[in-house]
C-alpha cells in the first residue's frame, strides 16, 4: 500500500500541472486542438488514479479547458470526488470546478447534497465559505429545498464571514425554492441590524433584490430602511436602499414626499457619482409617481436636470451617456424642463461616440414641438449626410421618421415639407429602410387628402427618375420606395398633370429588373393609369390618341407576361388581354373609358392594425362549432379523442338545412345585402366612381399654398425641403404679424388690455396653425370594437414565485424541511425524488406532497372565508372533535371534501382569482326552534351506503333534548338502524343542544339502485325545555338523495381516462348551459365541489373531468366554454344516472 502511494507521488512529479498545460497550449498555437486532445487523454488517465492530489490537479486543468470551450461534463463525477476531499486545497479546486461546470441538468448534483451539508457545518470557516460560494453558482431547486434549513442556521453563525455569505446565498435559495422565503424572512430582517457592516450590507442587498421584484410585500420595512438610509455612510448600501425606495414609492406616494428631502440633500452633498446618479434616478421615479398635483417639486426637477446637465457636459463619456439616459426618463413627465436644454442635446449629436449620439436621438424624439420640428429635422438631415457608418445613418433615418410621424403626425404643420423630406431620404445609399420610407409615403398620401396632389406630383418625378434609385436592389433597399410611388400615382391618378408620361415611365423595360412585388404593383397601377388616360382622351374628338395609348400597353406588357414572378405574370396577362379587348372595342368606336375606370372605382380606407381582431363575434355565432359534419369518426378517433363528445351536435343542425325554403333564402339574402351596405369593410359592387375624391366635402376650401413646383421637380437630387422651412417661416411671421395687428385693434377697442399678453416673445405652441387644414383620416375600427386587451406579464419570470406575503404569521406546514428525514430519502433514490414534484402537480400520488398541500389549502381557504363564515369554521372545529368518535365516517367525509377542492387546484393555473367560498350543506328543514342542514355523501367502502351528515342548530333560547331522527323508508333506501330495533323506530341523536349551539350527526342509509334520485320523508322529534316547562315538538323534512350524492370524487389519470373513453362501453349525453357568468376555473371548482368530480386535464377553456359512483359507474365529462355558454358532453355506463347527474349540474348553475 505504502509503495502504491509512493508510486503515485512520484508519478505526480512527472504530471503536467496547470502552468505546464497553459504553457503547452501557448506553445502549440498551430495545432492547439490536437495538443489539447492529448492533454485530455492524460487527464483521463490521471483521474483513474487513487491519489486525490493527482485528481485535483487533473480537475484544475479541466476547469481551465472548460473555459476554453471544451466539454468536460464527462468528468462531473470526478469533480464531486475532489469536492469531497478532506483537504481544503483540493476541496477548493473541486468546488471551483463544480461552480464553473455544473448546471441544473448535471445529474451528479444529486450526490452532493450530503457533502455540501457536511462542509457547511465544518468547523473550518473556509470550508463553509467555499461550499457557500460554490452553491451560489450551482444551486438547484432540490439542493435549495434540502439545504435551506442549514443555510438559514448559518445566517446566525458566530463568524461574520460566514453570516455574510449565508445571507447573500439565501437570495439564490429563495429563487429556487420560494417556500423558504417566509420561514427565513424574520431572520433575514434581523440581519439588517447586524453589528457587522458586511452582514448588514448583505442583508440590505438581498432584501432590496427581493423588494425590487415584488415591492408591495416589503412596504412594511420602509421605516427601517428610512432609518438605515439616514444613518448609513456606506455608499454601496445607500445605493441599494435608494434603489429599493425607488421601487416602493409608486405603491406608497406618501413615502415619496418624505424621501424628496433626504435625497436632495444627498444630491447636494455626495461626491460619489454612482450615488448621485442613483439619487437622481430615484428622485425622477418618485416625481413620476407623484406627478399629479405636486407643483412645488419643480425645484427638485430643476435640481436633477441641473445635475444631469453637469454630467452631460462632463468629459467622461460614461457620465455623458448616463446623463442623457436619465434625462430621457425626466422627459416623459416633465418635457418642458428638458426642452430648455435642447442646445446641449443637439451638441451631443456631434459626439464621436455613437452610443451617445443614439441616446441624444432618443431624447430629441420627445423634445420636438410644432415649433422646432423643422429645425431639428433639418439638423438631423445634415447629420444623415455626414454620417459615416450605415448603421448610424439608418438609425438616423428611422429616428427622423419616428420623430415626424409620432402621435399621428401631431407636430407636422406642413405636409409638403414632410413629403419632400421623405423624397430626400430616398437618396440615401445602401439603406435598409426603403420599406419604412415607402410606408410613410403611402400613409401620408392616403390619410392626408389635401396633400395628394402634391404627393402624386412628387411620386411621378420619382418614377421618372427611377434609374437613380435602382442601383440598390437588395431586400428592403431604397427601391422599395418605387412600390409606394407607383401605387400612389396609380391610385390617385386623377391628380397627375401628365398621366401619359407617368404611364410611359412605369412601362419602361428597365422596370423588369425590379423585385417582383414592385413589378406587380407597377403592372396593376399601369392599368389604373391607363383607365385615367383613356378617360381624358376619349373626351377629345381625336380617337387616335386613345388607341395609341392602348397600343403602348399592348407593346410593353408582354415583357411582364414573361416574368418569372407568378404575381407579375398573372396580372400582366390579365391586363394584356383586357387591353386587347379594349382595343378591339376602340376600333369599333365604342366608348369604353367609363367602364374601364369602373374597374378601379371605390376608395380604400385605412384600417387600424387591430381592427380585424376587434370585430366582436356576432351573437349566436359559434366559431368553434362544426359547419359540416366532422370527418368520419373511425379515422379521426386516434388523433382527436375529444371528437368523441362532439357527436351529437351536428345531428341537430342537419335537419335544419332542409327546412330552409326559398322565401327564407330570399329574406336572408336581403338581410345580408343590408348588412353589407352598412359594413364599411365590405367592398361594394356598385360603381361609386372616382368622383368621390372631388366630391369629398372639405377639400375645395382647403387653402393650398402656391409653390412653384417646376424648379425643384425638374432638378432631381437637389435638396428642396429647406425651401419649405423658409416658406413656413415666412408664413408664420405673416400670421404673427396679422395676429399682432388684430390684437392691436382689439387693444384699441379695449383700452384696458393687459400689457403682458401682446408681448409676443418666443411664440407659443398654440400660436402655430398648420399650413393646411389637414384632416388626418383616422384608421377605421369596427363598430362596438372591444376595449383594448391588456398585455400580460411574463409568466416565466422566476421572481413571480417570490411574490409572497411576509407579514402573515408562519404556519407549521411551512417550516423548512429538516435534515435527517430528507437526507436519507434524497440519497436513496435521487431520480424518484425529482419525480415527487411533478407527481404532486399532476395528481395526489405521493403522500408527503399531498398532505402538505392539503394542509396548506385548508389553511388558505380558512383565511379566505370572511367573518361571515365563522360559524362554519366552528362547525369544522366541532367536526374535528367528533372525528375521534366517528372516525370512519368523518374520515370519509373529509376525504371527499378536500379531494374535491384539491383536484380543482390540479387543473387551474396559479394566479387565477380566488374561489368564492362554497358549501355543500343545504337546508333540510327549519322552524323557530331548530334548523337542520345536511350533506349527503356516498360511501366508497360500501357500494350500497350513503352517509347523511346533518347539522342541527338550536335557534331558540331553550334547551333542546331527546332529539329523535326518523325516516320513512322506501323500497330502495333504508335508514340503518341499530340491531334489534324495529323498521320504523327513530334514531336518537347522540347529543343535546344548549341555546345557540349547533352540532352534527351522521346517519347511514342503505340504497339499492342509485340511478334515480330519491326523496325520503322524515321527522325530527325533540323536547324543548325551559326553566319552567317542556314541550314536545316535531319538524318534518324531506331528504333528497340526488344522483350526485352517489358520486365520489375519484382522481383519474389522463391515460386511464382516455382508455375509458376508447373502450366504447360508455353511452353519451350532453347538456348546454347558457348565461353562465363566471370564470372557467370557478365553474370547474363548482362542478368538482358540488358534484364530486375531479379535473383530469384542463386545456384553456376546455376540461375533462371524472367521477365514480359508489357502485363503480364511471362518469366522464368534457366541459367546454365559450363566452357565457358552457357545453358539457358526458359519458357514463349508466345512461339514466348520467341524465340525472347532468340535470343536477344544470340545476346548480341555474341557481347562480
Amino acid at each position, binding site marked *: 500500500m505504502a509503495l502504491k502511494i509512493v508510486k503515485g507521488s512520484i508519478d505526480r512529479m512527472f504530471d503536467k500541472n496547470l502552468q505546464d498545460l497553459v504553457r503547452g497550449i501557448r506553445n502549440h498555437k498551430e495545432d492547439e486542438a490536437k495538443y489539447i486532445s492529448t492533454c485530455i487523454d492524460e487527464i483521463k488517465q490521471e483521474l483513474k488514479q487513487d491519489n486525490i492530489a493527482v485528481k485535483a490537479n487533473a480537475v484544475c486543468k479541466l476547469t481551465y479547458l472548460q473555459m476554453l470551450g471544451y466539454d468536460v461534463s464527462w468528468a462531473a463525477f470526478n469533480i464531486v470526488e475532489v469536492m469531497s476531499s478532506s483537504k481544503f486545497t483540493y476541496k477548493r479546486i473541486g468546488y471551483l470546478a463544480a461552480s464553473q461546470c455544473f448546471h441544473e441538468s448535471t445529474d451528479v448534483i444529486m450526490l452532493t447534497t450530503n457533502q455540501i451539508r457536511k462542509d457547511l457545518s465544518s468547523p473550518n470557516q*473556509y470550508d463553509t465559505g467555499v461550499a457557500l460560494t460554490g452553491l451560489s*453558482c450551482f444551486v438547484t431547486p432540490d439542493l435549495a429545498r434540502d439545504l435551506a434549513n442549514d443555510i438559514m442556521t448559518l445566517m446566525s453563525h458566530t463568524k461574520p464571514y460566514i453570516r455574510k455569505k449565508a445571507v447573500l446565498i439565501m437570495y439564490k435559495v429563495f429563487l429556487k425554492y420560494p417556500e423558504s422565503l417566509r420561514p427565513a424572512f424574520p431572520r433575514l430582517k434581523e440581519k439588517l441590524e447586524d453589528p457587522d457592516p458586511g452582514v448588514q450590507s448583505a442583508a440590505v442587498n438581498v432584501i432590496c433584490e427581493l423588494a425590487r421584484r415584488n415591492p408591495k410585500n416589503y412596504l412594511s420595512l420602509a421605516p427601517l430602511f428610512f432609518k438605515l438610509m439616514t444613518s448609513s455612510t456606506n455608499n454601496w448600501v445607500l445605493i441599494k436602499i435608494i434603489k429599493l425606495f425607488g421601487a416602493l414609492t409608486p405603491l406608497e406616494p406618501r413615502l415619496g414626499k418624505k424621501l424628496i428631502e433626504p435625497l436632495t440633500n444627498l444630491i447636494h452633498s455626495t461626491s460619489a457619482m*454612482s450615488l448621485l446618479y442613483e439619487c437622481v434616478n430615484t428622485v425622477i421615479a418618485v416625481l413620476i409617481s407623484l406627478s399629479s398635483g405636486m407643483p412645488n417639486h419643480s425645484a427638485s426637477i430643476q435640481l436633477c436636470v441641473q445635475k444631469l446637465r453637469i454630467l452631460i457636459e462632463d468629459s467622461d*463619456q460614461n457620465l455623458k451617456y*448616463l446623463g442623457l439616459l436619465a434625462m430621457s426618463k425626466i422627459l416623459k413627465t416633465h418635457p418642458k424642463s428638458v426642452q430648455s436644454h435642447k442646445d446641449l442635446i443637439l451638441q451631443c449629436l456631434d459626439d464621436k*461616440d455613437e452610443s451617445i449620439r443614439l441616446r441624444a436621438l432618443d431624447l430629441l424624439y420627445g423634445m420636438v414641438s410644432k415649433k422646432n420640428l423643422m429645425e431639428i429635422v433639418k439638423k438631423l438631415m445634415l447629420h444623415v449626410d455626414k454620417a459615416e457608418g450605415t448603421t448610424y445613418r439608418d438609425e438616423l433615418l428611422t429616428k427622423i421618421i419616428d420623430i415626424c410621424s409620432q402621435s399621428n403626425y401631431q407636430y407636422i404643420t406642413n405636409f409638403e415639407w414632410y413629403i419632400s423630406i421623405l423624397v430626400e431620404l430616398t437618396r440615401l445609399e445602401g439603406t435598409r429602410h426603403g420599406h419604412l420610407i415607402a410606408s410613410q409615403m403611402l400613409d401620408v398620401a392616403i390619410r392626408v387628402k389635401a396633400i395628394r396632389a402634391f404627393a402624386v406630383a412628387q411620386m411621378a418625378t420619382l418614377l421618372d427618375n427611377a434609374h437613380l434609385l435602382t442601383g440598390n436592389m437588395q431586400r428592403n433597399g431604397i427601391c422599395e420606395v418605387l412600390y409606394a410611388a407607383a401605387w400612389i400615382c396609380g391610385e390617385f391618378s386623377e391628380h397627375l398633370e401628365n398621366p401619359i408620361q407617368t404611364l410611359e415611365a412605369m412601362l419602361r423595360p428597365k422596370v423588369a429588373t425590379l423585385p417582383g412585388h414592385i413589378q406587380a404593383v407597377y403592372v396593376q397601377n399601369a392599368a389604373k393609369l391607363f383607365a385615367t388616360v383613356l378617360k381624358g382622351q376619349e373626351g377629345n374628338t381625336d380617337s387616335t390618341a386613345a388607341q395609341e395609348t392602348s397600343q403602348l400597353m399592348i407593346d410593353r406588357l408582354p415583357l411582364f407576361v414573361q416574368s418569372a414572378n407568378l404575381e407579375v405574370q398573372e396580372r400582366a396577362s390579365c391586363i394584356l388581354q383586357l387591353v386587347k379587348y379594349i382595343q378591339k372595342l376602340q376600333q369599333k368606336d365604342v366608348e369604353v373609358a367609363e367602364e374601364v375606370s369602373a374597374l378601379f372605382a371605390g376608395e380604400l380606407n385605412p384600417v387600424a392594425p387591430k381592427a380585424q381582431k376587434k370585430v366582436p363575434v356576432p351573437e349566436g355565432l359559434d366559431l368553434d362549432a362544426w359547419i359540416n359534419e366532422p370527418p368520419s369518426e373511425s379515422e379521426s378517433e386516434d388523433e382527436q379523442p375529444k371528437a368523441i363528445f362532439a357527436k351529437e351536435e351536428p345531428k341537430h343542425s342537419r335537419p335544419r338545412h332542409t327546412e330552409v325554403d326559398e322565401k327564407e333564402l330570399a329574406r336572408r339574402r336581403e338581410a345580408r345585402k343590408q348588412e353589407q351596405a352598412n359594413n364599411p369593410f365590405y367592398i361594394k359592387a356598385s360603381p361609386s366612381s372616382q368622383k368621390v375624391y372631388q366630391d369629398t366635402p372639405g377639400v375645395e376650401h382647403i387653402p393650398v399654398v402656391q409653390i412653384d413646383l417646376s424648379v425643384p421637380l425638374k432638378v432631381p437630387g437637389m435638396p428642396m425641403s429647406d425651401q419649405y422651412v423658409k416658406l413656413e417661416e415666412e408664413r408664420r411671421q405673416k400670421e404673427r404679424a396679422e395676429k399682432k395687428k388684430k390684437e392691436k385693434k382689439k387693444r384699441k377697442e379695449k383700452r384696458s388690455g393687459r400689457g403682458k399678453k401682446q408681448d409676443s416673445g418666443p411664440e407659443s405652441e398654440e400660436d402655430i396653425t398648420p399650413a393646411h387644414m389637414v384632416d388626418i383620416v383616422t384608421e377605421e375600427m369596427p363598430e362596438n370594437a372591444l376595449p383594448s386587451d391588456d398585455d400580460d406579464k411574463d409568466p416565466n419570470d422566476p421572481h413571480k414565485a417570490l411574490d409572497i406575503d411576509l407579514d402573515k404569521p408562519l404556519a407549521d406546514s411551512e417550516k423548512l424541511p429538516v435534515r435527517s428525514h430528507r437526507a436519507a430519502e434524497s440519497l436513496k433514490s435521487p431520480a424518484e425524488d425529482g419525480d415527487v414534484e411533478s407527481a404532486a402537480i399532476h395528481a395526489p400520488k405521493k403522500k408527503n406532497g399531498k398532505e402538505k398541500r392539503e394542509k396548506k389549502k385548508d389553511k388558505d381557504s380558512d383565511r379566505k372565508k370572511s367573518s361571515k363564515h365563522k360559524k362554519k369554521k366552528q362547525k369544522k372545529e366541532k367536526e374535528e372533535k367528533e372525528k375521534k368518535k366517528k372516525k370512519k365516517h368523518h374520515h370519509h367525509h373529509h376525504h371527499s371534501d378536500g379531494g374535491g377542492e384539491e383536484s380543482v387546484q390540479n387543473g387551474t393555473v396559479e394566479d387565477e382569482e380566488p374561489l368564492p367560498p362554497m358549501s355543500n350543506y343545504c337546508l333540510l328543514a327549519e322552524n323557530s326552534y331548530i334548523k337542520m342542514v345536511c350533506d349527503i355523501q356516498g360511501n366508497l367502502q360500501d357500494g350500497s351506503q350513503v352517509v347523511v351528515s346533518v347539522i342541527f342548530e338550536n335557534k331558540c333560547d331553550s334547551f333542546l333534548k331527546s332529539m329523535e331522527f326518523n325516516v320513512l323508508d322506501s323500497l330502495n333506501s333504508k335508514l340503518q338502524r341499530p340491531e334489534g330495533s324495529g323498521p320504523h323506530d327513530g334514531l336518537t341523536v347522540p347529543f343535546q343542544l344548549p341555546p345557540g349551539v349547533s352540532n352534527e350527526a351522521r346517519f347511514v342509509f342503505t340504497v339499492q339502485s342509485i340511478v334515480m334520485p330519491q326523496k325520503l320523508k322524515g321527522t325530527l322529534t325533540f323536547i324543548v325545555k325551559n326553566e319552567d316547562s317542556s314541550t314536545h315538538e316535531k319538524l318534518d323534512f324531506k331528504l333528497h338523495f340526488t344522483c350526485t350524492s352517489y358520486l365520489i370524487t375519484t382522481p383519474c389519470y389522463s391515460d386511464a381516462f382516455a382508455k375509458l373513453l376508447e373502450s366504447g362501453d360508455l353511452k353519451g349525453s350532453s347538456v348546454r348551459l347558457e348565461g353562465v357568468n363566471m370564470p372557467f376555473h370557478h365553474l370547474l371548482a363548482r362542478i368538482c365541489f358540488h358534484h364530486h368530480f375531479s379535473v383530469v386535464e384542463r386545456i384553456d377553456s376546455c376540461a375533462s373531468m371524472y367521477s365514480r359512483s359508489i357502485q363503480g359507474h364511471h362518469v366522464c365529462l368534457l366541459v367546454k366554454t365559450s363566452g357565457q355558454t358552457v357545453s358539457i358532453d358526458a359519458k357514463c355506463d349508466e345512461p339514466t344516472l348520467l341524465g340525472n347527474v347532468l340535470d343536477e349540474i344544470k340545476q346548480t348553475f341555474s341557481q347562480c
Partner: protein
Amino acid sequence: MQFMLLFSRQGKLRLQKWYVPLSDKEKKKITRELVQTVLARKPKMCSFLEWRDLKIVYKRYASLYFCCAIEDQDNELITLEIIHRYVELLDKYFGSVCELDIIFNFEKAYFILDEFVLGGEAQETSKKNVLKAIEQADLLFETTTLHYCTKFKSNK
C-alpha cells in the same frame, strides 16, 4: 450582476463567472457575441451598452477587457466600481498584475473574485478584508501542501 467575463484584446476568454444558470451552449453563444461587440467598440466610446434586455458594463485595463452584465435597474457606475475594485484586488494580490498572472493562476483569480462577489452581489466592500480572507485560505493551502510534503517525505 448576471455574469462577468474577462477576455483579451485578441478575444481570448481569460475568466468567466456566471451567476445565472445557463447551458454551456448558451454561455458560449453569449460570450462569442459579447466579445465581438465589445472589441468592435472604439476606445473613446463609453463603457455601457444595451444588449438584449441587459446592460453591459465593460472596462479595459491594459490588454484585458473586464465585462459585466447587469439588469435594467442596476447602477452602471457601481458596476464599474466593482470592476475597478476587482482589478485593484488582483493588483494587490499579485503585485502589479498582468494578463499572464491571470492566465497562469486563473484559479487564484477566481478565488479572489469569489471572496469579493457572491451570487452576483458585492459581498465585501473592504479590500483589506477580502485580501485577509484570501491570504488565510492560502495559508491553509500552504499548510496542507506542507503537510503533504512531510507525509511524502516520511513515506519515502
